[in-house]
């Protein structure tokens, strides 16, 4: 690998707005993948945090440059992103469903979350965190959604969805269906009277 090879790979990474893997870099640069790997080593040093305002990082789908953390505030000012709201709880839950269960349709998301998912899906589409992925063969053929490369980049998932913690581990300290069920029954029993009461519903409506 020559110095020029490293510079060419650097130029390619700069030009692309999405991650590039070794294969794509090698094809475009006209060099071997081993050379690309060496070039990446050089560039990782040149684009390390503290050495450059632009850092090189690995995500699931390849290598990508991004603004260094120390420049985040300035960049946000430039892009006028300060006003961007954090993801709502509903959007985070919807994103979690798509990340773990995707490709998944809107009705499926709604079934899992117990509430219509139109707004969060729209907001995630708008932020480029999810995208359409064909249609389901279920009745009505609803559109399917999956997470994007952008999702991997925003959440720093080096191995894509394999970087997500297994859902069983996440739920270790959560009650299983049996416990939820017995608590539900207990709740229904204890609440028998207060639900039965002709509450303020009729009058306030």
């Amino acid at each position, binding site marked *: 690998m020559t110095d020029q090879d490293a510079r060419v790979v650097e130029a390619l990474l700069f*030009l692309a*707005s999405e991650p590039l893997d070794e294969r794509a870099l090698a094809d475009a640069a006209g060099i071997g993948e081993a050379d690309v790997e060496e070039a990446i080593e050089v560039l990782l040093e040149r684009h390390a945090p503290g050495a450059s305002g632009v850092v090189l990082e690995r995500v699931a789908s390849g290598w*990508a*440059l*991004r*603004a260094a953390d120390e*420049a*985040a505030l300035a*960049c946000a000012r430039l*892009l006028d*992103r300060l*006003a961007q709201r954090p993801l*709502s*709880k509903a*959007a*985070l*839950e919807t*994103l*979690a*469903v798509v*990340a*773990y269960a995707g490709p998944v349709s809107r009705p499926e998301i709604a079934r*899992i*979350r*117990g*509430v*219509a998912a*139109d*707004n969060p899906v729209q*907001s995630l589409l*708008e932020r*480029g965190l999810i995208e359409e992925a064909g249609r389901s063969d279920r009745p009505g053929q609803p559109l399917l959604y999956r997470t994007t490369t952008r999702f991997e*980049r*925003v*959440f*720093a998932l080096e191995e894509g969805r394999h970087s*997500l*913690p297994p*859902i069983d581990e996440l739920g270790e300290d*959560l*009650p*299983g*269906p*049996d416990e*939820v*069920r017995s*608590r*539900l*029954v*207990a*709740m*229904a*029993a*204890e*609440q*028998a009277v*207060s639900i039965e009461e002709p*509450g*303020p519903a009729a009058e*306030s409506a």
Partner: protein
Amino acid sequence: MAPSSALALELDLEPFAGPFDLLLALVLRDALDLGEVPVADVCLAYLADLEAAGEMDLESASEFLVLVAALLELKIRLLLAPDEVDDMPDAQEAAEELAARLAEYARVQAAARWLEERLAATGPRLFRDGPPALRPPRPVLDDAGTGDPQALAGALADVMARSREEAEPIHVLRRRLPLLRLLDHVRRVVSERGSCSFDEAVRGLDRGEQAAAFWAVLDLVRGGEVAVTQSEPFGPIRMRAAHAAHDHATGAAA
């Protein structure tokens, strides 16, 4: 500049993201506290919140009612045969289905929390979305005729067909009208002018907004802020600020 639709889309009912969230919070509460939580009151408060936020849409309200109904069914069966609930397949099924869905949802919530923490830990990660400001000198590419014009026509036909589908009931459901703003608008017009016709108040609004404004007027009448008169069917509707009627109206509603 925020995308124009972002504000409308971000509306989220805090602290609960939906009925499952609410139910789960109740279920996960320490059993000792359960007796102190009036489920019915919380349910009503939830619906009231939805309404107040202008977010009362049929879909979420009906999903919620289904859940409350499942809870009620459980309770009714408990009342009928308190000791035999496990022998009653229906009650058992209902409880199991609800419990399974809630347990699944609890894991989704855990995953959402993980994502949220991840985002907070990694900080804003900014990259360029599109091409850079300057492009490299570029040879002319030999790509003539590699695209299929029929694919374009097909894609556009899909778009148009989808828009047609959505122009049916879904369109109505998805349309977000600025109810609270219209409420404020009508309130302001009436209080500024003291009295005016409905037509004057809604001049410049489109049909959907006019309908929403009418809802706003009804709400103001209900709240005793505005009094309306209409001398004949389809005649002009006169509105006036109703300070005098205020006490009377709220008294009737209470």
